[in-house]
């Protein structure tokens, strides 16, 4: 066991735990944001640099601070380590930089993006970014491409987190999808042929933190905050069959895996469950999904909306011309 202090809060965790995991054990207030790390995808993480933290004391044995910020998802805790996340000016400043870099070429087309409302980049920028942009250069653009018949890749929105590449690598038996080109021309691609055609490919949609990989059967059907998530399961011979059904009225608009409080899928599901089972009768419904993220989705349905006292609808007047 190792004792580690993060933002002044001490916790004891098993050896080999990463700083990020330890921080998550303490709770969301000290957990650094993570855009590329994914618990269920070994070897993910380390790329996006949003989870960087400052280690002011290396360990009990070697108390020297680490010279650079470290990626908390890829750095193991040591006994006696002291870490600064939100309390470290350096980490906060660097993270602000990373957000700016991630948005530099991002199209900011949230109003027409299916991911809006459950997009980690939106959350990240809102919490850690600045309100203004410092660039007026043209943004890098790509054409949209179809990855198989159910998934569309919108490369302009991609933040190159490599999660989908890891899914392709680890979950799906034949890898047909990777990264082409270099630097800011890098592009997620299926190389020559279009189809990622296998039973678990749909999980790429779930792991994508932004709206780069979208479910073609759901595209433009509804803003997510107008849909109601319901937890359900079925007996599936390919996967765990544990899903969330997203309803609008009586219709299931889409099926996704179940996500934990960090927005990560708990267990991956197969394409049959995801794309082919869209009737309530296909499923055993467990009940409304408990959305613990600070999510606009939950605000719409399951929380009692508290209207601020000072402001009632009647107070809102049309703008004077």
């Amino acid at each position, binding site marked *: 066991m190792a004792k580690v202090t993060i933002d002044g809060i001490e916790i004891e965790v098993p050896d080999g735990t990463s700083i990020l995991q330890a921080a998550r054990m303490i709770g969301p207030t000290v957990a650094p944001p993570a855009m590329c790390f994914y618990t269920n995808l070994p070897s993910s993480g380390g790329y996006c640099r949003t989870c960087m933290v400052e280690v002011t004391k290396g360990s009990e044995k070697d108390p020297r601070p680490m010279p650079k910020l470290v990626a908390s998802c890829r750095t193991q805790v040591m006994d006696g380590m002291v870490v600064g996340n939100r309390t470290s000016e350096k980490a906060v400043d660097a993270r602000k930089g*990373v957000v700016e870099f991630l948005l530099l070429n991002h199209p900011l087309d949230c109003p027409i993006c299916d991911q809006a409302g459950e997009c980690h980049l939106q959350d990240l920028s809102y919490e850690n970014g600045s309100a203004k942009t410092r660039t007026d250069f043209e943004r890098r653009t790509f054409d949209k491409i179809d990855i198989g018949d159910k998934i569309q890749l919108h490369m302009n929105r991609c933040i190159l987190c490599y999660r989908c590449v890891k899914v392709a690598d680890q979950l799906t038996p034949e890898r047909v999808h990777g990264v082409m*080109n270099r630097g800011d021309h890098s592009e997620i691609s299926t190389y020559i042929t279009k189809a990622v055609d296998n039973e678990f490919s749909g999980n790429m949609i779930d792991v994508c933190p932004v709206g780069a990989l979208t479910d073609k059967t759901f595209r433009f059907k509804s803003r997510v905050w107008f849909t109601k998530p319901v937890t359900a399961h079925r007996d599936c011979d390919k996967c765990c069959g544990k899903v969330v059904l997203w309803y609008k009225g009586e219709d299931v608009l889409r099926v996704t895996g179940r996500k934990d409080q960090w927005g990560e899928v708990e267990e991956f599901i197969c394409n049959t469950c995801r794309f082919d089972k869209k009737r309530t009768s296909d499923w055993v419904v467990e009940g409304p999904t408990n959305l613990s993220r600070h999510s606009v989705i939950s605000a719409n349905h399951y929380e009692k909306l508290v209207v601020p006292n000072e402001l009632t609808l009647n107070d809102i007047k049309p703008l004077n011309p």
Partner: protein
Amino acid sequence: MGKKLLLQNDNVPGIDTYEVYRQHGGYTSVEKAFKMTSDEVVEEVKKSGLRGRGGAGFPTGMKWSFLAKPEGVPRYLVCNADESEPGTFKDRYLMQRHPHLLIEGMIAASYALGANTAYIYIRGEYFYIVNILEKAIEEAYTAGWLGDNIQGSGYSLNMYVHPGAGAYICGEETALLESLEGKRGNPRIKPPFPAVKGLYACPTVVNNVETIAAVVPILNMGGDEYAKIGIGKSTGTKLISASGHIKKPGVYEIELGLPVEEFIYSEEYCGGILNDKKLKAVVPGGSSVPILPAELSLKTPTGEPRLMSYESLSEGGFVSGSMLGSGGFIVMDETTSIVRNLHTFNRFYHHESCGQCSPCREGTGWMEKITHKILDGHGTLADIDLLWDIQRKIEGNTICPLGDAAAWPVAAAIRHFREEFEEYVSNPSSIVDVKHYYNIHNLVEA
């Protein structure tokens, strides 16, 4: 004449052939090594104080002693011949003219590390050197210096040359290993370090061409003797690739500790500034290291003469110092535009970023766009501060040092030549260079 340990036979005709090389004392270091245990060879290299010639200057003997040695797992020696740093061309010279020196060093080093397979990962553009090396390796096999049971010692070694496909990033040691394994050349996230999990997840040492070649004189003369050459912790000799506005550009072997002034102005080396113009700035260690204005390149901040050594060149930190780096010595005369030079560097790093981590992937492109804008005459004062802020947010925040290498030149150019940037943005029309650049740019576009 300065001391020569690597290029002393540079003028011997046919030194690239086995016979001539052997006649001039070639392969004696291997004979010497075989009389020692492998640990003794490592010890000798440790005593020599040799530091990596690939850029970082990490003590080679120490690197070798970190190599993990689990039972039943092969170990590898990989020679980094990717040499793609702008301003650096010494490895090419060495391999082209003295291929056997590298092979001899590789054998001695592999023996010291207990590696039975060694690779030379060579920059793709050096395809013609691949032939030279392969011919020399062939000769070494024929003469019994490679293969099974070398010279009856019981030690076996196979050696392969592997060309890269044209990426600077494949010079970074873990990207190199990925590429050597046949994958996309993305740097790995460390730890684990190559000494523990390198090529095919086996313990691996990656060393620069010149580092490995230096093992030959070290074994021939003994580590202690070698350590007496040079100055302080910068022992031995170093190949310097001298380029830019000098009378005699080329590759020079210098004894570490040579004053920069002597290197630039003496007849033996660069022979002074071209057309006897004034010196403006020096990039002493390849494009990645900070640029130094004339005064700071000849004298340290404390007024001492600046020497060609790891320590002296970095004296003053990044505020008033630089680095010896890979020894790519770029000299600029008074007519040089620092802004344009910086733009060239920015273009390079933007082009070469592998794109794994956000700060480098996006930041390098952004910095290029800004210097381009300034050169086009549309820059503002705010752009200079923005450049500064971008480099600051890249440095130290990336997976591999390419991010730092892209950030440092920007920081140093602004630190030392801010007025020039300000002149460019406040009075663009008066600067001939902008027009010139504009013309070239338009020509290329058209």
